């Protein structure tokens, strides 16, 4: 199934959105690894798994727990460490 990851903050260097094809039942936790691979594929100089580890995934309304399963056609935003205020 397909999910779309909206880029935010430092991830904007990869564009506005990244489309990923994932297996049914994939969790947010597993998405981290898949996204890291995808980013490395998009930019071979990307080497920042710490950044992905410290990022969170969210929908328009909530931060997703690592155990949350992804759903078909889900729109997800990746939120790196924050620095508001």
């Amino acid at each position, binding site marked *: 199934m397909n999910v779309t990851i909206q880029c935010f*903050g430092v991830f904007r260097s990869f564009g506005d959105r990244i489309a990923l094809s994932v297996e049914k039942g994939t969790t947010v936790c597993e998405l981290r690894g898949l996204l890291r691979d995808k980013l490395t594929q998009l930019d071979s100089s990307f080497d920042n798994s710490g950044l992905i580890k410290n*990022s969170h995934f*969210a929908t328009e309304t909530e931060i997703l727990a690592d155990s949350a399963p992804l759903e078909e056609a889900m729109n997800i*935003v990746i939120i790196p*460490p*924050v*620095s*508001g*205020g």
Partner: protein
Amino acid sequence: MGAIFVDICDVATQPLDVMAGLAFVTRSPNGAENLFVGTVRGVNQGKEVLGVSYDVFESLAKRSFTDICAEARAKWGRELSLYVTHGKGRLPVGGVGIVIAVGAPHRDEAFKACRYVIEQVKHRSPICKLEHYADGDSEWTKGCELCTHEHEVAGHGRHS
């Protein structure tokens, strides 16, 4: 009964309005208003800064502000009024990036609630900052990992 107002403003067309915040929270039975205003510093870690751009994930940011304000009222009193607005887009040095205003009957609650709100916003609200330097470079500030729950914030160290 107090009230809560939160918003994200595109600073290109809608600069943050400190007096609107003060006016919103100055209501009976309050007599003490505390405001926090965050402005863009001209220097960060030794580098000359020309401005910053805030990237805000709006829906979730507003939701976090509302949650945080509700927590503050649960802690310091239902009569508290709170106002939080954050800018998005590019600000020059001295530009206002956040306005927090808290009105309370007494000053202790006003100070504590205002401090609580800024600490929580810095740790929980999905906002990123891109700094623009005098040397032409731009860089996303490192920030701190998003806290997904208020209890995680208490032990954190100080950030700007």
